[in-house]
């Protein structure tokens, strides 16, 4: 049969010679290797006290953004849900009333917006799909939890807190 790759190696099984049979040379070699590691620099990061910097394009937990007047940008168009390969996003749209104009930017908004963090694969396609620049994966790690239902993040966890735009510019 044709070999599939050129990596085939014929293993030769010679009986061990005397030096190999008394094991000691090999043992001493092994011991010296482990002893060298004893004095090596330890690459471990002591996690809670020391943290590694995240890369610039790290994709963490989603946040639903607000505009410069503090209104939610999302218009519940559903494009993010549509683009999501893991089908992690569900939403219920609602129409904005007159009194809610300071809360939502567009006439339509997401009354319920949920992401199932167990399904999400943090691919960032929702971020790319959004026409309103309303969703970004710029948060921290999604933390562990005890119950499955607690991994369905609603708007309470996703919408970013209100901030003062004037302070941001100064």
């Amino acid at each position: 049969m044709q070999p599939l790759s050129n990596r085939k190696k014929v293993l030769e099984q010679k009986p061990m010679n005397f030096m190999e049979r008394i094991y000691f040379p090999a043992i001493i070699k092994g011991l010296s290797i482990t002893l060298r590691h004893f004095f090596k620099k330890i690459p471990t990061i002591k996690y809670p006290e020391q943290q590694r910097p995240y890369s610039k394009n790290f994709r963490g937990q989603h946040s639903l953004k607000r505009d410069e007047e503090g209104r939610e940008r999302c218009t519940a168009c559903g494009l993010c849900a549509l683009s999501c390969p893991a089908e992690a996003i569900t939403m219920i749209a609602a129409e904005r009333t007159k009194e809610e104009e300071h809360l939502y930017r567009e006439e339509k908004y997401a009354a319920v917006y949920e992401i199932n963090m167990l399904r999400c694969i943090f691919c960032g396609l929702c971020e790319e799909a959004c026409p309103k620049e309303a969703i970004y994966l710029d948060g921290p790690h999604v933390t562990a939890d005890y119950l499955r239902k607690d991994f369905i993040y609603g708007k309470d966890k996703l919408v970013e807190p209100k901030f003062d735009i004037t302070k941001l510019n100064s």
Partner: protein
Amino acid sequence: MEWSFVIEKFALVTIVFVVTLVIAMYSTLAERKIAGFMQDRYGPDRAGIFGLLQPLCDGGKFFFKEEIIPAGAHKTLFIIGPTIAIITACISSAVIPWGQSLTIGDRVISLQVADVNVGILYMFGVVALGVYGIMLGGWASNNKFSLMGAIRAASQSISYEIAMGLSIIALLMVTQSLSLKEIVGQQSGFVNWNIWSQPLGFIIFMVCAFAECNRVPFDLPECETELVGGYHTEYSSMKLGLYMFSEYINMFVSSALMAALYFGGYNFPFMNDFGLSQNWITIIGVCIFFIKIFAFIFFFMWVRWTLPRFRYDQLMNLGWKMLIPLAIANIVLTGIITLIKDTYFS
């Protein structure tokens, strides 16, 4: 028998016992630390500084774990198993001479619990009993893996005890005494250490000590990869703790034995040249002895994190076909050398 003698021995036994337990406790930490450093990581470092409280946490955890006795197990033997293991481990340190004697007032206190004149035989007897703990525990568990581990432990310790005994015989030919106190006493200074006259014997003894303590590369009775946990598969809580503890105590005692038999015990180079008083020599000697012991314990751990486990047939081959013939050759060689020395150089 005077009262002061009883009190003195009692104090000594207590000290030895406590020291043994503390060393066994901290061996568990040292093992993990050394493993860590050899694998380029830290090892436990959360409980206390450098993880110094880790053994206490482990001990506490052992006590509070649920105690499980399997339904099919032989209940009495299941409990006797770890008991024997820990008792034999603890009493084996009785004949080790920890130092010369201290003079307080006009009393001379010998730092050896019992100067049995057949100390080495006592040692061997106790170690041979120790395997009963493992055997009973493994058999009583009513579990295939445990039984397998117990069988391996038994056959392994029988095979290696022969080579160990033979290597000791060569040593006895040199020292002419069975009393540990005398053997150590003969090795004063540095050039008199038995390692210089018995290098081969020492290597055989050390390999056998590894096997007797069930340490890697001869840890076939437990080998988690094939036998789950070997003889202590079914054990939980402090019973498991006792097994582990007895393993570490055995390691400590065999380190002490190696240091005493081959590396001069409490003797250190130039001990009589500084004009120190007897008490100081004794105290320094005890410290030196412990340093030697710790070096051996470190070596045990160092080997553990370096070598893979032997296969069972390799273990038996090594024991019967290599070590025993070597040990016999060593005896013959020692005999010839002694004869030549006695006839031509005396």
